[in-house]
């Protein structure tokens, strides 16, 4: 029985999904804060949001890189 592989799959799934969701949620939150009235520095917060979205996109692209055999071979 491949219990170890099962555990690896479960762990990887949990961690990768959590990372993507955390990054995207932070992006959403910073966008929301930046759009609030009376913000001392909306510019910085907006850029933080974009960094979060960017990192999230990078994570997804890495996933694509993994599933396309052309790159991994």
């Amino acid at each position: 029985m491949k219990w170890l592989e099962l555990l690896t799959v479960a762990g990887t799934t949990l961690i990768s999904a959590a990372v993507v969701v955390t990054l995207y949620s932070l992006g959403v939150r910073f966008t929301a804060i930046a759009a609030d009235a009376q913000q001392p520095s909306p510019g910085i917060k907006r850029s933080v949001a974009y960094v979060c979205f960017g990192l999230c996109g990078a994570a997804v692209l890495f996933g694509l890189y993994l599933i396309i055999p052309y790159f991994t071979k």
Partner: protein
Amino acid sequence: MVALVIALALFFDFTNGFHDTANAMATPIATGAIKPRTAVALAAVLNLVGAFLSTEVAKTVSGGIIREGSGGVQITPEIIFAGLMGAVLWNMVTWLKGLPSSSSHALFGGLIGAAVVGAGFSSVNFESLLQKVILPAVFAPVIAGLAAYVCTRLAYALTARHDPETGSKLTQKRGGFRTGQIFTSSLVALAHGTNDAQKTMGIITLVLIAAGSQAPGSGPQLWVITACAMAIAIGTYAGGWRIIRTMGSGLTEVKPAQGFAAETSTASAILASSHLGFALSTTQVASGSVIGSGMGRRGTTVRWNMVGKIALGWLFTLPAAGIVGALTALLVKTGAVGVLIAAVAGSAAVLFMFFYSRKSDVGHQNAVEVEEAGQAVRFAKKKAMARARAKAKEQAKAETDAAANTPKENQR
């Protein structure tokens, strides 16, 4: 016989496509992130692309569940034909019932049934069956559901906004998740294309090799790849709206942040499993994610009786497809007349189910009822939202009244 098997294999690919549209596209359709028509078109294109991206053909159709070659059963076009017949019919039945179920498990079931008729129970490798079908079927929804649960909690916790002084809730502004859903669901659709079209390519290649028209050990020919990619894309575009309805609104109510979490979990589970060698079924992963995300959001209920129905469907997938496969194998054994009878009976059953489905039409316009209302309230202020909600309620009421007047449409 070879032509017949290829035609049936392509049809299986088609049913596989429209069965699995829901996995990727049910949640974005339910939240109104993408319009239904656009969603299935996007999924179809990504499936097409995915099918071309990866041509890692499975060397054994059954993945070692049936003992092939010496000491077991010789996989002939006849056995593949019988197995495909079981899988196709089971796919049609589950589609009619709107149940998401794994196409690969249906194929395994059909092949097992055919092999048992061909060479007895000894031809089935039960240890491999347990390891490759039964345990993944139990763990896939659990793993994906757990990930989706955690992610939904995370997404809501990270975006919950309270006024620091009064502690009252601010506008949450979670609309951004809708945009994110487009990308995550696309990823799921692409992953599906890279996985599922390969199965049919493998089958057709195997049949061609068995018939002697292709050198053993060579990869799929270009026309096979193209045909399979087209079949799965057309199937996806046809859209299994009944299954989309089940996944999008039958299991739980889906909100954008929740849908995003569910799709991310689905995508990571599929990628992780196909990469680390513990194959999980796309359908089972996706269903688990939707259920998990429903449990993660406060104020939603998971419709457990629907979950039970789906689980029951999974339980029956293997034996039901197996029985059809076995019956077909028996017919095929009798010779050319038997093959003809099996082909005609199979087509008749498929046609019957198609026309039966026409009695209660489920299409892009009514697959998920909240969809129009969901788009109307996009980024609207609270007052407008309340107004839209009241309107939607009225509309829903009018619809149910209309449905009550025409009892034929009342059945779902």
